[in-house]
């Protein structure tokens, strides 16, 4: 075999090696953001962008905040503006830089071609050395690659978590506003009753006792209105924080009331499949498995061995003593290569199995989480619907009938006000139910795509602002 032919053979072998590591050497110019952007875009229909200029997306954010917020716009503002997310993007940049560094010395063609041609042994020796250097560098690359993949997924997860938290907080903020408005109306009815009581006191029809009862009720409702107003401020501030807003921009507005319930809800059938396909933390686990598999040379030992067969084939082409020489030359590399004995394969098998089990565990947990989230979602829809379709119409009927009773002087004027309060109390409960539905929907979304917060999944409380996936 001519030298040139051998060189070609070596090159093709190098290519084979490179394919074996699945294009791992490629370096992006976007700090790893491309994957993150396309993933977030698919999952959230929103844009993410690394703020390289430090100016941020002032104009875009300003435009987004101009109108009364929608959940989508709130998420977009948060993705553009949340500094924690930007930090995750920077971390991704760091990982990629490390990856690039790890890739640098392992350019085999440079190494091989840089050497001037000597005897066949020489070339083979150099090539082998270079290849071994590649194999030696390979774990470093694998590590860097795993890191960048992890950083990418972590960045995606952070974005998804931020989006989920922002959406949930958006619903809480709107719900607080609606609750406040309802309570103001309720207080109005109490105030009217109190004034009525006062006037009946003046005509001599109502004693101090009954007047005081009405006044006390009004005063208590006033306190509750103040509480509700505080809640509006708190929820607003929490939303502003997630969107990374401060100062003048934090004076954005949200709608007065929650949107109507959807008439139909998602069905159970595709939800688990969706989650298995899309959950970002599952992707991370799968990537880990891939990495492990690759680290151990695709575990199926033939494949693993075939890599070494390639080395042996080179020796077979030359003298039989070359193996010894090769072996001699491999001293520095002996541990990684010689450790690929049966013990090493068992370790690979165990490592692979561990990763596979972790992946399986994750998948099973996710399926359960998404079922739980679905049950909560369907239950919340059912409760909210009961309020919309039954409780509130019945309250209206009660009020109408009470009015008829009043018309017939069968019931007192105060009973109208009392029924109005009862209706408003039901309305308040209906707002809670509706808010819980929208929160449950976010929870289901997060359980399907990521950003799922197991701690907040069942109790409906505000989740902690960290992204533990």
């Amino acid at each position: 075999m001519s030298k040139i032919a051998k060189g070609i053979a070596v090159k093709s072998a190098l290519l084979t090696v490179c394919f074996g590591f699945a294009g791992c050497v490629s370096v992006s110019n976007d700090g790893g953001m491309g994957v993150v952007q396309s993933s977030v875009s698919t999952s959230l229909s929103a844009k993410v962008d690394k703020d390289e200029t430090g100016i941020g997306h002032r104009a875009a954010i300003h435009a987004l905040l101009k109108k009364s917020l929608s959940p989508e716009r709130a998420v977009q503002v948060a993705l553009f503006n949340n500094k924690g997310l930007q930090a995750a993007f920077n971390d991704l940049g760091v990982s990629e830089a490390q990856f690039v560094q790890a890739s640098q010395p392992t350019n085999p063609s440079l190494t091989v071609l840089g050497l001037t041609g000597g005897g066949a042994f020489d070339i083979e020796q150099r090539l082998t050395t270079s290849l071994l250097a590649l194999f030696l560098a390979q774990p470093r690359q694998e590590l860097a690659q795993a890191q960048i993949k992890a950083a990418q997924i972590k960045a995606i997860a952070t974005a998804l978590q931020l989006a989920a938290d922002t959406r949930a907080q958006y619903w809480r903020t709107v719900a607080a506003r609606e609750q406040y408005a309802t309570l103001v109306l309720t207080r109005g009815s109490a105030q009217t009753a109190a004034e009525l009581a006062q006037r009946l006191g003046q005509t001599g029809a109502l004693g101090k006792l009954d007047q005081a009862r009405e006044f006390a009720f009004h005063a208590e409702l006033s306190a509750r209105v103040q509480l509700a107003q505080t809640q509006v401020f708190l929820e607003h501030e929490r939303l502003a924080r997630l969107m990374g807003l401060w100062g003048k921009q934090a004076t954005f507005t949200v709608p007065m009331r929650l949107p109507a319930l959807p008439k139909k809800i998602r069905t159970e059938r595709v939800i688990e499949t969706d989650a298995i396909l899309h959950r970002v933390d599952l992707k991370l686990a799968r990537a880990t498995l891939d990495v492990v598999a690759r680290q151990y040379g695709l575990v199926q030992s033939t494949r693993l061995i075939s890599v070494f067969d390639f080395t042996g084939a080179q020796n077979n082409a030359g003298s039989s003593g070359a193996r010894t020489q090769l072996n001699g030359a491999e001293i520095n590399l002996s541990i990684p290569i010689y450790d690929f004995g049966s013990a090493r394969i068992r370790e690979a098998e165990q490592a692979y199995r561990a990763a596979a089990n972790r992946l399986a565990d994750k998948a099973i947990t996710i399926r359960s989480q998404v079922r739980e989230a679905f049950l909560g979602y369907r239950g919340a829809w059912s409760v909210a619907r009961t309020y919309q379709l039954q409780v509130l119409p019945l309250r209206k009927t009660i009020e109408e009938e009470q009015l008829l009773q009043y018309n017939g002087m069968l019931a007192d004027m105060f009973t109208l006000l009392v029924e109005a309060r009862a209706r408003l109390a039901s309305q308040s409960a209906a707002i809670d139910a509706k808010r819980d539905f929208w929160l449950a929907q976010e929870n289901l979304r997060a359980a399907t795509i990521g950003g799922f917060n197991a701690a907040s999944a069942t109790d409906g409380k505000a989740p902690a602002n960290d992204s533990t996936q």
Partner: protein
Amino acid sequence: MLTRRAFVNASSMSAVAVAAVSGRGQAASIPEAATMKEAGTQKPLVPHTGPDYNPIVTLNGWTAPWRMQGDWKEFHLVAEPVVREIAPGMKAYLWGYNGQSPGPTIEAVEGDKVRIFVTNRLPEHTTIHWHGQRLPNGMDGVTGLTQPPIKPGQTFVYEFQLRRSGTFMYHPHADETLQMAMGMMGLFIVHPRDPKERRVDRDFAFLLNAYDIEAGTYLPKVNTMLEFNLWTWNSRAYPGIDPFIVGKGDKVRMRVGNLTMTNHPIHIHGHEFHVTGTDGGYVPEGSAWPEVTVDIAVGQMRAFEFMADEPGDWAVHCHKSHHTMNAMGHSVKTYIGANLGNLQTKIAKVAKGYTAMGDKGMAEMGSMEMPMPDNTLPMMTGFAQFGAVEMGGMFSVMKVREGLSAGDYKDPGWYKNPPGTVAYAFNGTLPEAVRAAGSPDATHTKADVRVVKPGSMPAKPGMQHD
């Protein structure tokens, strides 16, 4: 309208009926039970068989037909659930007899032998007590005491001879409170053997009864003992009670029986009357006492007579003024004098459709005709030629007119008052009243009455509230 239905229409019923009436030869067949579908006053039933008499006019009611079986007058009462129209716009789900509550009036003549079949189509047992009658003890109708109960599906027979004439009633004496609260009762008139005895031109009869039917409902609350909200005559409330149509110069008798839980002072405008009959019988002519209001105690019957010699539309009513009102809310506060002002808008904001009422009084209620709960009569209602009458409950009108023929009970419309005989508004200027020197100025009354409890400050009207 009187309809007839075959009583024995089901073989199972027939078996029960035969079993229940077995042992009495004459009862081998049972008279048909007539039923009534209308709540209006029916024409008096002139007798075609048996001794002659002057028939009664049952206010918003009717007389049960009978058949002669030998020398027995046979009636058939069916105790059953009925729907009674209390007044146009309101129906009550009651228990009664032969399609109505009260049941048909039983009319017979002193000395008649009556055989009354009583079929029970109620879900529980019943009996009939013949209130005021002299009869064999075993015919008195007290369940457990004088007879076994008439179980659902059974028919019992009561047989007795009518020993005296007068005004009587019939009602259950089994689960009595409930069954009477559900409307089970009827009139029983025994006419004198001699049609000329105590003869009048128009002879009206009605029972006083009371129900508690909440606004928007149909079924009486049977556990109410005193706080009834519907005060009725023959289970009718004004404006559902027919007027008494009377010819000028007619001798009129009204017979009233009280099966409510309270007394009722029945009052007639424009005439004095003499109380001529009680539960115990006729008052001797020389002892009949004059009144314009006769109080009828619980369980009592009174008959009073007068000459209708004043033409016009004369009110006849219970003088307990709350008995001339329909269902009302007793918990409604008093708003008289309260200046609701801008509060009305505030209330309307919370309670949509609200209109202020009661701050001047309640008369507006009589004419407003506001939307009401289903099946509910306005508390005060009724309209006549001069406007809203503002009445309800135990109220009706006696229309005395010239030139009515004997059997004419058709409503003649509103009375045409001769010119100058109707109260009128004064449109002139009132001269300043001449006052004695030193008399207090009427415009500056200082009679500010304040209640002062021992050891306390005078009560201040109103509290301060911001």
